[in-house]
């Protein structure tokens, strides 16, 4: 894999970013605890998040890309009409089924 620039600085990325990443992981863990306490785990977004976590355990350095792909609408045709303006962060399987 090519990297740019040709001579990357030799930074200790664990020192730079471990604590921030640890905090973000705790936020995710606490979120999952919270939705479970309030019996909201059936929401499609929670399922999508839980499924995405498995990607983090892989060994190839494209986890961020694959997490984004996991949350993405993989259909290719334009929808007939936009009935909403916002995005949810994950694909609602009921909406995709209705557009087919």
């Amino acid at each position, binding site marked *: *894999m090519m*990297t*740019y*620039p040709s001579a*990357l*600085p*030799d*930074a200790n*990325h664990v020192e*730079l*970013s471990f604590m921030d990443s640890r905090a973000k992981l705790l936020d995710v863990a606490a979120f999952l605890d919270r939705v479970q306490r309030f019996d909201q785990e059936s929401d499609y977004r929670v399922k999508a998040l839980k499924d995405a976590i498995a990607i983090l355990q892989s060994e190839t350095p*494209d986890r*961020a*890309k*694959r997490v*984004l*792909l996991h*949350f*993405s*609408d*993989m*259909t*290719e045709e*334009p*929808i*007939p*009409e*936009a009935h*909403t*303006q*916002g*995005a*949810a*962060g*994950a*694909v609602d399987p009921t909406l995709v089924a209705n557009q087919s």
Partner: protein
Amino acid sequence: MRYIEPHAHMVSRTTDDYQKLALAGCQAICEPAFWAGFDRSSSEGFYDYFRQITTYEPARAAKFCIQHYCWLCINPKEAEDLQLAKDVIDLIPEFLEKENVLGIGEIGLNKNSRNELAVLEQHIQVAADHDQLILVHTPHLEDKLKGTKLIVDALRNFSSVDPGRVIIDHVEEHTIQHVLDAGFWAGMTLYPESKCTPARAIDMLEVYSDENIWMNSACDWGVSDPLALPKAAQEMRRRGYGAEYIDKVVFQNPARFMSQSPRFKLDLG
């Protein structure tokens, strides 16, 4: 440090932000036409908005020695109404004569609908007819990948459009390669939750490319940070990048793209 903020919606920011940007070293701001957070009721609303970003915002920026440039369009969130879109697009040529207008933007897609795509294509035609630069918004979140592919295909259908004069903004790790492989410029947006962090943006510079790419804050009426770019520069310093390389990314790259417009007059020395 000097830098250019290539994408900021200053109509939705207070004058305090101009002061902060000036203190941080911002020399020029580029403001695409965007969604105001509500749907405008007529093309007259857009006419006044175009007046605001071609006349008032440059004056407000100039008080802090910042050059202000802008882009014109009807944004994709309001593009479902084809008649409104046509009326707004018909207004654009008049404003292309204004001295701070760099081109057509931020056009693009939102929910990836047929009407949005039709309006996108109408904008591309206007840009082609008037030899304008193009700045493109890619959809949010789960819609981004699909929208990016549709946008790239739509642009490719216009043989007169030079990809080197088009920047496709808000790329992330799953869309950046599509954009760069097609010969377009790519913009990385440092916006909370829905887009990139500085760390991820710098990762993409390292993994994909540092040519034909820029970073921006896209600060607007939402929770967003007009100083996202200087903070990304600080993250680059933490990683060991020197001043010269940082200048390339936050100043020279956007200047190189925008200098393709004869209206961009920033001193690049």
